[in-house]
């Protein structure tokens, strides 16, 4: 029996007069890794922003953990257990790694040393770099900080916006290994990705977004074998 953690029901999101998300419905169940695929400018990031409350939908309903959060601001949603690893990581460059991690725990108050320990266990490299400025880290390490920062709020759902962006092929692989690892630890995830191959290899289910509409959804294994999708995104 699966319990839905995050649901978007018939959501319409606008940027000014532009209709971005059109009647979009999406569910992430407890403990599930869901990927959201799609080309450029099809509304992937907007879906995440809507889920996080950075943009508010005109119509529709968003629930998280059984609670209606449609009119709740980002701060409340983060407190309830949604955390994000933003596109391009968006670290706070002139602040140290430790400060960046502590910021992740902002909604919980002062950072819990146990949470910090957990992040350092996951990314031992960061422990040595605690006092280094985040902006001086390499791309792969910045990714670790961004994920660690998100984990500091003890999220029930992790939103990841293009985790492969700007990373070398090997780091992309490592990045997805890490995602799979987090998933095994029981964290639910919604991963937005252009790299459909990679995303489908770790996901349980997937949605395909095209110009603001869900055009395809299903099990990751089914999607990976889908003829049309393969032609459109997998380049085979």
């Amino acid at each position: 029996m699966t319990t839905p953690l995050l649901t978007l029901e018939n959501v319409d999101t606008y940027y000014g007069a532009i209709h971005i998300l059109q009647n979009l419905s999406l569910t992430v169940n407890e403990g599930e890794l869901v990927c959201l695929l799609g080309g450029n400018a099809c509304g992937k990031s907007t879906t995440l922003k809507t889920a996080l409350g950075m943009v508010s939908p005109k119509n529709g309903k968003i629930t998280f953990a059984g609670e209606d959060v449609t009119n709740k601001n980002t701060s409340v949603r983060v407190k309830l257990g949604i955390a994000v690893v933003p596109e391009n990581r968006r670290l706070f460059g002139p602040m140290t790694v430790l400060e960046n991690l502590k910021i992740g725990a902002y909604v919980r108050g002062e950072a819990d040393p146990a949470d910090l320990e957990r992040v350092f266990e996951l990314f031992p490299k960061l422990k040595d770099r605690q006092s280094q400025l985040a902006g001086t880290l390499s791309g792969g390490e910045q990714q670790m900080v961004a994920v660690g920062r998100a984990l500091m709020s003890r999220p029930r759902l992790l939103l990841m916006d293009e985790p492969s962006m700007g990373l070398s092929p090997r780091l992309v692989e490592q990045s997805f290994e890490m995602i799979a690892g987090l998933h095994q630890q029981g964290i639910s995830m919604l991963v937005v990705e252009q790299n459909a191959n990679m995303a489908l290899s770790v996901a349980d289910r997937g949605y395909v977004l095209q110009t603001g509409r869900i055009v395809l959804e299903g099990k990751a294994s089914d999607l990976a074998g889908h003829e049309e999708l393969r032609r459109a995104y997998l380049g085979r």
Partner: protein
Amino acid sequence: MTEQTTPENLGIGTDEWVAQHEKRLSRRAGLLGIVDFLNQKVSPLVRYLLLAIFAVGFGALVHNLYLLRIAANLAVFLALTLGLNVVMGFAGLLDLGFVAFFGFGAYAYALTSSAQLNQHWPTYLSVPAIVITTAFLGYLVSLPSRRLFGDYLAIVTLFFGQVFIQLIISSDSITFPGHEDSVDITGGSNGIPGLDQFKLFGYTFKTITDYYWLLLVVVALLLVAITRVDRTRVGRAWRTVREDPLASQSMGIKVNNLKMLAFIVGAAIAGLCGTIYAAIQNAVFINGFDMPLLTLIYAAVILGGSGSIPGSILGAFVMSVLPEILRVQNYSEILFLTVLILAVAALSKGWKRFGFNASLVILLGLLVKVISSALSLATTPTSTWAVGPVSKALKYWLLMPANRILWGNIAFVLLIALIANYSIAKERVKFYLLPLIAFIAIFVWEVRLVIEPNTTRQLIIGMMLVVLMIVRPQGFLGKTRVEVL
């Protein structure tokens, strides 16, 4: 395919660049190296302790009222700088209405403690009430500003600042409905004289020394409070708002609320400063709360390093003591030459080169002097210009033409042209350009600028800021900006 081996046996595929981060940190050479070294080695506690000892010693030992007044003004200015550092340094809000809160505090104190409205509130009531009111005013101003950033915020706050000034100026003849006569509330541009002195814990403040001690306590408390806040989650959150408001919001930080908080804290500090300043001055005048002061506070924050608390202290010291020093010709001469020597030393990148440059400057001066006397050019008699110890020492070396204004102006234009070219010149050209620029700078100073101290003061401060912003954009003690790529 051949593999190349490097001396350190770098592995292929590992993140060597970052792995060797510590090793590849280079130390600055020469004078800037010493500054960096001291900055890193002297612990903050020791620095603050030294500062406290100096401040207490100054109050205990100095009885010169003029010096104490400067020190008290410096303390007010320092508190203001710390306040602006919260708004602009921590939260990154370009608040150009900041001095209006200072002015509001001063005027509010004047109105509640003078014969103007015949109100004489006790200090323990008026000051807290004014601080709270100013904080509330900060909240009101932050309401329309809370969704604005950068230049948009600057324009809106500038508007509020100017509105305050206009309100004060025009509130000297207000006719209330139902009354015949107009009421003078603020004294308009004449200001409000004859304010009550502070009276706290049964003690009436009489001299500037009393206020000096009060200010010392206020500044110390402010320093402790702000340093602590900087290290808490609110301090961290402010910095994220400054760096990347959108990312900050996605972490669940209420960006707008934090901006409003910064406004409120800044306004409260400025309001408190205003009350003390008004009491010290014993009067308030509106022109003290306009652009010139705002520029000075901003210069202090930027000079010291936006966001850095020690930087604010340094900036406040420089920006309030410097104009006073530059008033006196001898001091300004010494200061100018010191800065020039330091600049040449810094640009020389090494003591050998510095020695070479210095001797070249001396040679150049002598050469000009010898040539001019060989051509028997008219000069100004030394007795009329060599007054201070510095110029007395310089008279054997420096040529002082008869027509100081003309030659001074020509040299000044030449100096600016040379400096402008210096930054884009090739290394080889720079080598010869530096001593030449140094010599002409001394010439221009002695021949022309010394005669007009008022213009010179502004010029020097402006030039210092320009040079600093080129050499060290983050300010003296500010952190280098690191962008996430």
